[in-house]
């Protein structure tokens, strides 16, 4: 007996591959992004404080999604990509 596979699907075309640039964690700008759930900001504040023991933190900035339940808006992703060499995402949940 032959059956159709209920999980079969064709792979969607993936996004264009990007080449990641090396990050200098001692000096480069870093985005700290919260998913807007409770405690994500607190976690990131701890990360920023710990980084401060090793490097300047004036170019380490906090950002947040405007809704925990929805994807990050395109504008936020573009802003982070344009202005930062690295991003750390905290998932409070």
């Amino acid at each position: 007996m032959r059956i159709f596979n209920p999980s079969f699907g064709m792979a969607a075309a993936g996004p264009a591959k990007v080449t990641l640039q090396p990050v200098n964690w001692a000096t480069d700008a870093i985005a700290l992004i919260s998913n807007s759930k409770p405690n994500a900001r607190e976690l990131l504040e701890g990360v920023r404080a710990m980084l401060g023991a090793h490097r300047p933190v004036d170019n380490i900035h906090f950002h947040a999604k405007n809704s925990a339940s929805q994807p990050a808006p395109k504008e936020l992703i573009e802003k982070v990509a344009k202005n930062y060499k690295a991003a750390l995402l905290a998932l409070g949940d």
Partner: protein
Amino acid sequence: MKDIAEQEVIDIGDMDVEAFNEYANEQGWSDGMPLFVPTEAKVAKFVETVRGDNRPYPPVPPRQVVPTLQALAANAVMAGCKPEYFPVVTAALRGVLDPEYNLHGTLATTHSCAPMVMVSGPIRHELNINCGTNCFGQGRQANATIGRALGLMLLNVAGAKPGEMDRSTQGNPAKFTFCFGENEEENPWAPYHVQRGFAPTDSVVTVMSGEGPHNLNDHGSTTGDGLLTTFAGGMSNPGSNTIYGKGPMFVIIGPEHAATLKRDGFTIDSIREELWKRSRVHLSRVSKENLVTYETTGHKPDGDWLSIGRDPKDIHITVAGGAGKHSAFIPSFGGTTVACTRIAR
């Protein structure tokens, strides 16, 4: 030989139904209840019912695969659908694929949401969909299997496997199936799909990522004003997602309550306005910690009150059910929309 996940057609030899169910469980295809076998012949009958709908399907998140009609039909067969239900199921799938529905978020969340499927228009009676007594409950093949088929598609095509991609803290019985019809015949206002701009003769599927129905019991009120006080009290919930993740919600009014509201001059719009005003949550019912979170994420109170949506239009209203003094409130995930799809026939 291809991995099973990459094979569109699988030869399972001479398995009987019990053996197939064991096999399907091993593959992760089951919602836990027995499945029908998606043979090539059965799947072909289902595919025939949607031949007039040639619009391609987008990649289905979170798994991001483009489904074939045969794979979708296999899920409807397994759910126990009749072939003529399949256009309703595919319309429901198109609804949850509306980008504003936020399928990835609604499947991956820790919230308990499940896709609510409401059917409007002439197809309700053609398929014997329950719109009246016990419409959210058991007893009709169409209600039971249309909702189940969508759930199986989300499991098998979208990849929403419990404990893996589906991270719901407690889940919800509505994840097995949640499909009902509007009671247009006892709705004193316009049916929901007509409110949304469709013709009364159109058959339409409406989906929303919602919780199960919360009962709104009012045997005592004899006025529309009294009923709305009860409804609003049931909706005013500091534990609802929509208190901070603003989004839509449904109030499904039972026919007897609807008749009272209509007699007293209420319209869909005036019901919305009243429920919006009366269902606000007083800050004394919100914890200090939560209030800080809401304020820092842009959900500031209006004076001493938090609203349960963005504006009155977030409250969607229609009529379903049978005799009795009950209505229902169905809150949503929050970051989602109410998507309507005309059934292609």
